[in-house]
């Protein structure tokens, strides 16, 4: 083999396929997937379906709770469940997930307590869960910053040698940030066991992908880091799971990081505060609704005869339970103690913080006396 062919092969290995990997068409029928990908077992797909049903119900409930003022804000991921649940199912319990603000459904699907997941958006604390306990980083708001943390964690896991991996989630908009670039480069140079999943949902708030990149697709960014890349139909759970599982296993075996772009769509507004009519039309939403990942997987599984009416009904019932518990739990007022604000700035409060704490304590005491509201107006 000449040096020329060897290099060409390297490049070919790094480039994504021209078309996104797909196992299931929009109508739920099976299509022939490209070579080299293994369809996940039916049991796992049924489990995925169950979590998608719950995830969607959770998402709808959370959106509803914003209207009742129970959540400060909620970024819906309706339409992106195949990505989020595919990501979670590709991981083992000991693996780490680095999510964004839009990935609450992934977290709930990972088994995190829904109320703890919603702390950030409810406003009682910035992160409601214990990241180390659930191997899930805090949901990240500053875009793409978490992708580098994911590399650092992956390097930490590599050093410990237990074969654990990291999966980092990021949006299409987030890929434009310098941190995304630095993360991919660090991952490749360090051969860190990390998989980057870009949920390309077509928009960064109002900005469409065409203003975000001129690349043939975001997956083409991988080659610039010497990182294998793939694109996948992000509304096809089967494909997402197949592609991510392969990438995760590659990382686990010490064969390095990879980049996966999932083509998907958020069916709702950016958050409840957003007005999407200003930047996209209903026809586009309708077209993507027809590619909804949830009925697609249902049709596919029913078509294969591995999902029954009863199972579907059970999923729906389970989802209702989750929603109901969420409603009930978020109806309870949180009685936080403002003095806790001083407890976690440092391991031990500084003399300055102790003074300020005393000042607030006095203000609160005074406010309580006067039955007034303490602090700012």
């Amino acid at each position, binding site marked *: 083999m000449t040096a020329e062919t060897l290099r060409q092969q390297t490049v070919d290995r790094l480039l994504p396929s021209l078309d996104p990997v797909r196992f299931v068409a929009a109508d739920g029928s099976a299509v022939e997937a490209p070579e080299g990908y293994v369809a996940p077992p039916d049991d796992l797909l049924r489990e995925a379906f169950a979590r998608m049903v719950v995830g969607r119900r959770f998402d709808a409930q959370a959106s509803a709770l914003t209207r009742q003022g129970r959540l400060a804000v909620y970024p819906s991921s309706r339409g992106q469940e195949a990505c989020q649940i595919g990501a979670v199912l590709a991981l083992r319990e000991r693996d780490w997930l680095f999510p964004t603000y839009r990935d609450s459904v992934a977290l709930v699907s990972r088994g995190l307590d829904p109320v703890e997941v919603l702390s*950030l958006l409810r406003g009682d604390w910035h992160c409601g869960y214990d990241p180390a306990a659930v191997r899930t980083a805090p949901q990240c708001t500053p875009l793409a910053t978490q992708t580098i943390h994911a590399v650092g964690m992956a390097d930490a896991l590599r050093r410990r040698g237990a074969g654990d991996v990291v999966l980092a989630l990021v949006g299409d908009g987030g890929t434009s940030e310098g941190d995304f670039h630095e993360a991919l480069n660090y991952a490749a140079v360090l051969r860190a066991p990390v998989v980057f999943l870009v949920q390309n949902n077509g928009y960064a708030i109002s*900005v469409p992908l065409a203003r975000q990149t001129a690349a043939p697709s975001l997956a083409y960014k991988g080659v610039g880091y010497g990182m294998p890349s793939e694109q996948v139909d992000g509304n096809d759970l089967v494909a997402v799971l197949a592609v991510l599982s392969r990438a995760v296993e590659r990382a686990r075996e010490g064969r390095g990081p990879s980049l996966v772009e999932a083509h998907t769509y958020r069916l709702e507004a950016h958050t409840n505060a957003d007005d999407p009519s200003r930047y996209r039309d209903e026809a586009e939403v309708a077209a993507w609704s027809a590619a909804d990942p949830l009925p697609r997987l249902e049709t596919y599984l029913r078509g294969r005869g591995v999902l029954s009416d009863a199972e579907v009904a059970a999923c729906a019932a389970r989802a209702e339970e989750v929603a109901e518990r969420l409603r009930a739990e978020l109806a309870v007022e949180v009685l936080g103690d403002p003095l806790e604000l001083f407890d976690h700035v440092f391991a031990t409060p500084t003399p300055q913080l102790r003074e300020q704490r005393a000042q607030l304590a006095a203000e*609160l005491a005074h406010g309580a006396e006067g039955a007034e509201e303490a602090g*700012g107006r």
Partner: protein
Amino acid sequence: MTTLTMAKALNAALRDALREDEGVLVFGEDVGPLGGVFRVTDGLTAEFGAERCFDTPLAEAGIVGLAVGLAMGGFRPVVEMQFDAFAYPAFEQIASHVAKSRNRTRGRLPLPLVIRIPFAGGIGAVEHHCDSSEAYYAHTPGLKVVTPASAADAYWLLRDAIDDPDPVVFMEPKRLYWSEEEVDVGARAVPALGRAVVRRRGRDATVVSYGPSVPVALEAAGEAAREGIELEVIDLRTLVPLDDATVVESVRRTGRCVVVQEAQGFAGVGAEIAARVQERCFHSLAAPVLRVAGFDIPYPPPFFERAHLPGVDRVLDAVFRLQFDDEPDLTHAAEGAGR
């Protein structure tokens, strides 16, 4: 005269600047068809086209760096950072280039550009959306730093900032976006940039404030008056260049001073004011200059905003500690004794 919210006044300022000067360009994240998340750029793309008001890829160093290049090329960029903490990725561009270009080129490559930053809290937003970041910029030589506290000032300060030959970091107090006021956009008065304004006259003590803290200071002055204490309230409007003269004149007259800022206090702009006032008015002072500020903690989650934000009560507490009774304040008396 029209009644406008601060957001609409800013919108009008951008619109008028775009109309008057072909070189003015507005860009940032979501400033185009969406009109910005606070709608400050609403309708600008429709009126002026996507060449004059446009969405960029999502990268703040890129936004500011692009502005630097366009300003080098003779344009007057006015860029939006979506929220305070999301300007941090652009910090190197701001500190190492925006602030220094005129100086490093001996005045040959000035960068007249405006970086608009919605800042501070009080709107129930989640972490990273509520930082008071003005001190980072005010501490950086070469940047002008401006922050309006009223709709009329918002209009005129932004016009001044766009016309200014130097780069201006224009900090917009988010929670005042919806506060309304009569705005006269017709005739330009004396430039507002660089001049503090006395919002309320009083003889007993001076309260120095800016941006989101001005309404708090004014409300406190109202309450204090009911207790017989007449506070003079200064709205700085511009942190750099600071209008020392107005502050000094007032404190020399009142003999007492409280500085109010929403930002965490440590090494903030309020520290600068307090340090300057005691340097320049020492022999007029009947009591130490006191500071009222946010605590030195990361901005709290929405549930605890009220506990953190310096409110009327905290301002009044400080005012009442200004030793009107001529008794020394013993708050810190115990300190340092035992060492």
